[in-house]
């Protein structure tokens, strides 16, 4: 009985989304756009969370006018304001480079979307991860694509024809070269333990034993620091330091161009936090101390667990931003190369030893 119902359901899904009729690819495109829209809504949520949590830390009330008592729709009001501004293009900028920079940043942030599973849907014993696609090298693809955004910032800095922007662009490149190496090495150490580059396999590997954050604490700390450097947040935001370099690479941007770049940074933050949850914090698996409660994992409950962990990681990232001062650029590179890189190598050795004993 159940088999027949599953067959009918699968047949229906293939008719709608498959390639038999002419409308298949279009419907898939619409679903993809909905996924993009969902990510934008979650980035809006991330901005709201940052403003509210920052105001809690600082003894003040954050947004509280637009959209009810908690200001949930504040970003829509900001977006309308940004659309209504004049589109200023300074005289001597390098037009294709200057115009293309926010587009590149936004595009590269959205490219990460296709490989990240946002939780899982459990039905009848099998786990269906909620990802757009699953392919075998997904973690490698994610790391590669997240690095494309640097080129966007450099284009913004160079094309602006402005001394402050150029200094910011150079600082950005210096920072990223150092921290991509450490980031890559920690991801490689996780891959060594798991034995597969597929991100779904990494999450499954953490279900049976324990999360990787507990067995590889050094790797987790290095990954955390490198991720914050990757996202360009304080203490690593020298490229947009408002104090020295008026607005860094964004000095000549106003209106919706600035809005695109700003939004792209928050999407990067959202997706980076998702990766941190998936790789080190067990993805959608239940925390170990709650397994005894014997809650049946059916339906969308794993997705709910994933969301809760994601919110906690983002709150921690926001706390780091508002609690620490900014580091100088030469100290940033010296931390990246002299401290994080050797520690990442040590972590790699530890991960290799762990990979020999990891039970699958």
């Amino acid at each position: 009985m159940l088999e027949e119902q599953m067959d009918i359901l699968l047949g229906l899904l293939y008719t709608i989304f498959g390639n038999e009729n002419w409308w298949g690819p279009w419907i898939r495109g619409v679903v993809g756009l909905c996924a993009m829209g969902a990510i934008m809504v979650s980035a809006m949520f991330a901005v709201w969370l940052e403003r509210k949590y920052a105001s809690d830390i600082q003894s003040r009330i954050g947004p509280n006018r637009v959209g009810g008592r908690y200001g949930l729709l504040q970003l829509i009001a900001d977006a309308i304001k940004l659309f209504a501004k004049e589109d200023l293009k300074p005289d001597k900028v390098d037009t294709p480079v200057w115009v293309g920079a926010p587009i590149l940043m936004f595009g590269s942030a959205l490219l990460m979307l296709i490989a990240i599973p946002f939780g899982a849907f459990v039905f009848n014993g099998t786990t269906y991860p909620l990802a757009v696609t699953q392919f075998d090298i997904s973690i490698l693809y994610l790391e590669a694509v997240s690095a494309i955004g640097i080129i966007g910032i450099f284009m913004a800095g160079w094309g602006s024809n402005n001394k402050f922007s150029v200094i910011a662009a150079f600082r950005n490149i210096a920072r990223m070269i150092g921290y991509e190496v450490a980031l890559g090495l920690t991801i490689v150490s996780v891959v060594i333990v798991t034995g597969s580059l597929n991100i779904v396999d990494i999450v499954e590997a953490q279900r049976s034993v324990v999360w990787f954050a507990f067995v590889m604490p050094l790797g987790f700390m290095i990954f955390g620091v490198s991720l914050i450097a990757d996202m360009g947040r304080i203490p690593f935001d020298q490229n947009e330091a408002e104090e020295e370099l008026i607005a860094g690479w964004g000095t000549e941007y106003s209106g919706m161009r600035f809005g695109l770049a700003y939004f792209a940074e928050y999407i990067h933050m959202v997706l980076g936090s998702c990766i941190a949850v998936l790789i080190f914090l067990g993805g959608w698996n239940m925390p170990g101390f709650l397994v005894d409660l014997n809650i049946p994992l059916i339906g969308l409950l794993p997705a709910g667990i994933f969301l809760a962990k994601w919110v906690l990681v983002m709150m921690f990232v926001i706390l780091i931003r508002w609690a620490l001062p900014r580091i100088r650029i030469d100290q940033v590179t010296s931390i990246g190369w002299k401290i994080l890189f050797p520690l990442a190598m040590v972590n790699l050795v530890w991960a290799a030893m762990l990979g020999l004993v990891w039970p699958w």
Partner: protein
Amino acid sequence: MVNKHDVKKRMRQLAADYIHEPQQEAYKLDDTEMMLHIGPQNPIQPGPFLIDLKISGETVRDSKLYMGYGHKGIEKILESLTYIQGLPITDRMCYLSSLSNNEAYVSSVERLLDIEPPERSQYIRVIMQELSRIQSHLLGTGEYATDLGFVTMFLFMIREREYVLGLIEDITGARITHCFPRFGGVREDLPEGWREKAIDVLAMINEKCETYKELFSSDRTYRMRTVGIGTLTKEDVIKVGLTGPALRAAGIDYDVRKVYPTLTYPDIDFKVQTGNNGDIFDRIMVRINEIQESCWIIEQALDQIKPGPLFPDELPYGRRTPSMRVPPGEAYVPVEDPRGEIAIYIVSDGTDKPYRVKVRGPSFALMQGLPPMLENVYIADVPAIAASMDSCNSEVDR
């Protein structure tokens, strides 16, 4: 009669100093160097001034300072106003520490008039000075924290400053430009119930300063940015002519309240806070220690104050100061501003308006101390150093 051509030649010589042309030595650039203007309009500056930095990569090789963008001609304005009308104008020279400016002006005029305020007025003036010092140090340190990227400390300090401003407002009636002392006394007495409120607020500020000292000194990222940077040794500090916390951070304990004591400072027991090295870290620690020391001074003053008249007996008008004729002479009374030593030098010729008023402001020397400190530092250190000196731009330009 002055020769017109001589005047023009002299003006051209003076103007050549202020032209940003590559003929000047500091503006000749190599292939690797670039000129960066921390310009007259910058979001972080407290007022307009210009620093031209010659940078090579991220290191500053040379710097040139230009001031005067906010010159209002206060000293000339004070020549055309009577003495009592000039008092609100001196408020507005440095609006953050306006009680110290008032005190300097009123002390000079009192010395010219040869009167001395009674004891209760002196204690009230001491309390107001120290309250003004607390709120100015809180704001100055908060602004410095934003220049490091540490925005949360700014908001914490502003939150504490609101309580202190509430205390000041209860007495004087205004939050920033107070216009409170008068010649021979003060405008109004302490209100009922102020003493208990003040003791609570001061206890809270004392406790919060301990938290700030821990937050500032235990944080490793903060120490990386501030220890050993922007150092002015003892010889440099005397050469530049600094006073105030920037001088005391280098290790010299010169405090105007101990060296030229006015009012009732000799009866109050307090220590002069000094630092060791004269870098950014020490300056901030000296300021926070001074806040705690000021709380202790106010508590002692509140214990020692006794009821009495606010104006001396031979003064028939009290707070209704008329336009009076001040006997001819000159007077210079230095006062400890939160930024250093301020003194207003008044020359009087016997009429009801001063003949010449010259202000010795502390912030001018603080700005002059910037170019020697900015050699071979990184660009990111420039705002940190400039903000740790805590100079008030409107007092530099007057």
